[in-house]
């Protein structure tokens, strides 16, 4: 008989092992899924995990990993601060969109002026936009005790409609023959978030993501505020005795995650995406939640998880076009990753004991 026994302390070893185990289980279950679809499972898994890094065209895919991973890491870092303190910002997608609208709005309002300070101003506007959008659930929670999960999630849909309205209205390209979508910022030198080194995929968003990782690490390990965040998540009562003011913490966590999501949106709209369009929001804000948990809410873990997630995206696309795998199979594969992570998480907090039947009864 198998019995689960709660560990007195979460296991350190399993904290590190579970993500690896989850990836392995995903490979096995995913392989089985691909085999059922009539594809060679080994080739499919190799295409997803190996080809983006080491195939013939890796010179193109490797930089793309940075492009795809950076917004995920940037958003996930912000989310992880709140998640650690038990503050659940589910609406990063909305903050990402509003940040992009605000940042791009600054550039489009000043078009075609060229100035060195334009891009920094856009970054600030993007961060402010995301932060203000996140302040709505934060203030509602602090003032009226509303549930930030619901409010932040609902605001995603508001943001999506705002985006559609901007794309066909206020920010529409006046030279676009009436078609939706803003001017393309890639063709506006002062506003373009170009690659810092051509062909490297390294744009300001990647730099910002790396800086965010370092800051989060220092904050959580070396700073009083980081201690308060961890304490609130682990022992809310003790936190109150230690002088943590919950309201301030809520505003800080939601505000920071909103600002980072907004910046991610700005870097995306001014770089890889180029324009405000109806379908600009492509789910980074939601995927980042998976990345945050896959990375164990730890800054370095998130960095690795962001890379892994980007890998499954790029590899998944290659598998689609080379092997003819349907895109829903790839999405299922990514979903499995979170599923297995949550499932094997039980090993962190519980110990498996083999006992004889009599004892159980």
């Amino acid at each position, binding site marked *: 008989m198998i019995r689960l026994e709660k560990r007195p302390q979460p296991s350190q070893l399993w904290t590190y092992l579970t993500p690896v185990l989850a990836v392995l289980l995903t490979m096995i279950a995913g392989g089985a899924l691909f085999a059922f679809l009539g594809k060679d499972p080994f080739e499919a898994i190799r295409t997803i995990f190996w080809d983006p890094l080491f195939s013939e*065209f890796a010179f193109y895919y490797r930089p793309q990993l940075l492009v795809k991973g950076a917004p995920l890491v940037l958003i996930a870092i912000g989310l992880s601060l709140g998640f650690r303190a038990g503050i659940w910002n589910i609406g990063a997608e909305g903050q990402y969109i509003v940040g992009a609208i605000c940042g791009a709005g600054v550039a489009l309002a000043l078009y075609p002026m060229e100035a060195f300070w334009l891009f920094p101003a856009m970054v600030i506007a993007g961060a402010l936009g995301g932060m203000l959008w996140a302040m709505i659930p934060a203030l509602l929670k602090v003032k009226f005790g509303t549930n930030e999960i619901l409010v932040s999630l609902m605001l995603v849909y508001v943001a999506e409609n705002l985006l559609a309205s901007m794309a*066909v209205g206020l920010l529409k390209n006046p030279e676009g023959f009436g078609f*939706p979508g803003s001017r393309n910022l890639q063709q506006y030198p002062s506003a373009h978030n170009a690659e810092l080194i051509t062909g490297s995929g390294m744009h300001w968003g990647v730099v910002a993501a790396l800086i965010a990782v370092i800051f989060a690490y220092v904050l959580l390990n070396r700073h009083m505020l980081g201690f308060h965040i961890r304490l609130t998540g682990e022992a809310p009562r003790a936190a109150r005795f230690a002088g943590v003011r919950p309201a301030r913490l809520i505003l800080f966590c939601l505000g920071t995650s909103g600002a980072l999501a907004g910046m991610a949106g700005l870097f995306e709209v001014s*770089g890889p*995406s*180029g324009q405000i*369009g109806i379908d600009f929001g*492509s*789910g980074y804000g939601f995927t980042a939640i998976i990345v945050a948990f896959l990375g164990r809410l730890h800054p370095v873990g998130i960095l690795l998880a962001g890379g892994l997630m980007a890998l499954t995206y790029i590899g998944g696309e290659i598998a689609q076009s*080379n092997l003819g795998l349907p895109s829903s199979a790839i999405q299922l594969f990514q979903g499995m990753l979170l599923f297995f992570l949550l499932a094997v998480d039980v090993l962190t907090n519980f110990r498996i004991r083999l006992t004889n039947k009599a004892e159980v009864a």
Partner: protein
Amino acid sequence: MKLTKLLTTAAMALGLATAAVAADKTKVGFIYVGPRNDGGWSQHHHEAAVEMAKHFGDKVEIVEQENVPEGADAERVITQMALQGADLIFTTSFGFMDPTVNVAKKFPNVKFEHATGYKTAPNVSVYSARFYEGRAIQGTLAGRMTKSNVVGYIASYPIPEVIRGINSAYIHAKKVNPNVKFKIVWAFTWFDPAKEADAAKVLIEQGADVILQHTDSTAPHAAAQAAGNVYTFGQAADMAEYGPMPRISSIIDVWAPYYIQRTQAVIDGSWASVNTWDGIKAGMVGIGEISDVVPADVKAEAVALQDAIVSGAYHPFTGPLNKQDGTPWLAAGEVADDGALAGLNFYVEGIEGAIPQ
């Protein structure tokens, strides 16, 4: 060890063989915004791609990618296809326009065809269909069939393509039924069965007994069927499974001949950048069979209109027409030119409500 070596050799031999065959084949890529079984827009591109591949047999290999988000992801997917040796790539959604142009700059030897856009380059063609011709026929049928004089219209995005369709349908409904009114719901999606069903239900509640749709799923048909006496039209696909009631006709996208022609051009080396905008006459727009619930005289009227459009005797946008605010647009007998139609962003006189901005 020995077995591994044997396998490796076999694999290498196989790999070389495939590479040799692949060199002779023309590789054609297709990128879809939705799933290839969406029942509408993307599915029709997919089926046309398969038909094209069948036409050429061994000479052509197709690669496809579905559910590609518009924006940065599209650019990567297109690049990936070009890197892997595609000779010709069809990007089948409006939002793929800038990504297509960007990638085309980096791969001057690969040919690109972008559906429904307006940006061309030496290696980028654009193609679209004059769906408004089909809308004229739908409008005529709608105007004749409605008893409540309320026609519902499920619109997707406020872009010229959609606004053209609304105007064309309205002009021709009004022509046969001066009391007709249009109620327009903006769904802000091309494909979302739940949203489309909701839109259809709202329109039916508001008294609409004919529903036109510019979205791709069959959900509005199901809603109309449930409601009873409501007529609908297939969009992009024939959607004949909902005939003879509620679906009484349809606009069908017919891409295969174009795909065959353009792929042939790449094989022959005669491909050149073009801007194609074909209608019923060229066969790019198909009119699904008008079902028997439509009275014979109404059916004859619709067929006559179709014949007039095909022969060139009649253009759906012929004056006198005023803009919604009453200012004149086309004088009597004047025909709208393609430039004006391509960027159409206003309603004609008589349509109520504003285009969302």
